């Protein structure tokens, strides 16, 4: 951290020292003009500074040795939930692992499909919450209605 800060400060100083003699004579060339001069193009709006920083800092772009390996191994063994995996590896790397087939996460629907608690008439089990319960009633009612006809 200290070394990096020192290097950055040196860079700032160097750029400033270089810019001063280059910029000084040019200030004398200012010319009044009716032409509307656009403001200086941004450093950030083009999003390189932002997205470059963002993508690196909010995701673990750079695998960090043992920690990375351990997290991947734990995730591939199913010992980490999707949330835990994303916390440890970042969204980008987690998605990369999913795409490569190294890590898989069971979606709620997939869990239900493999659940032995799925009832025989195709309705969702009651423990899944109010919406599936409502569906269950509806489907059962509709099936009964069909049988009556």
């Amino acid at each position: 951290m200290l070394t990096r800060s020192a290097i950055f400060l040196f860079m700032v100083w160097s750029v400033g020292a270089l810019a001063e003699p280059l910029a000084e004579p040019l200030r004398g060339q200012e010319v009044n003009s009716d032409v509307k001069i656009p403001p200086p193009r941004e450093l950030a709006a083009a999003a390189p500074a932002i997205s470059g920083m963002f993508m690196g800092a909010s995701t673990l772009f750079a695998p960090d040795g043992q920690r990375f390996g351990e997290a991947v191994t734990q995730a591939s063994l199913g010992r980490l939930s999707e949330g835990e995996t994303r916390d440890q590896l970042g969204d980008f790397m987690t998605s990369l692992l999913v795409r490569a087939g190294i890590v898989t996460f069971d979606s709620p629907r997939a869990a239900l499909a493999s659940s032995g608690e799925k009832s025989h008439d195709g309705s969702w089990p009651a423990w899944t919450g109010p919406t599936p319960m409502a569906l269950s009633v509806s489907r059962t009612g509709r099936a009964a209605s069909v049988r009556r006809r």
Partner: protein
Amino acid sequence: MAVLVLAGYLLVPTAVQAQQVPEWLQNLKLPNSAAKSIMTPSAWGAAFGSAFLGAGIAESTPYLSTSDGIVAMGYGMGDPVLKVGLQIGTTVSDLSEFNNFSFSVKIHRYLARGTSIAIGGESLFSKDASADDAGDSFYFVMSHVVQAFGSSSPGIGRVHVSAGIGSGRFFRKSGRDFSEGKGRNGTAAFGNVAVEVARSMNILLEWSGTNLLTGVSTTIQMRNVPISLSLALADLTSYSGNGVRVLAGAALAVSF
């Protein structure tokens, strides 16, 4: 044939064994956390669960000595690895008046082996197009982290490159450039190189389509909030503008 070779090169290995980190992943070089460019876009972008805020300032305007700057903010949506990522931003491009807003959008997709592509637009829906550089600017860009050399560990010589083509500010010079005999159009093609010289620190060199820039960028962590700091020299050649300008910028990102 070349397309097939490229497609084969970029293909993600799928035959991997669970419970171990495959070698290709251990050796994969992805971008570091510092900025990859100064004024040109890269194909890396924000994804779902993130927002950013940044500001930039230039010590002088081309052909004038007045300084000005911008404030930008935005957020990400989607997933650039599994589907596509979408980055939406808004920019206040005239801080002295604080009256010129524009929008930017970028759709980006990670391919494989440290390669990403993006298409986007900038300075969109600007109230006064002439006050926001060249008005609407659209681009296509491909970014890559060189896999052949450097280390996958942070801080050791990764090389990031981007190349793209665009309209608007990537192509058109200012009216003043034209009146100064510097031509009406730039190259439309742009590109940048960012070499990692220390952990989360890049030295930058880029061609914006109308001029050459160089700079340095680093990212520091402050209470788990990453803050990117960049310093650059713009208009290094006489292809446009009237001399070297100093640019500086800072940005922070939050995850939620």
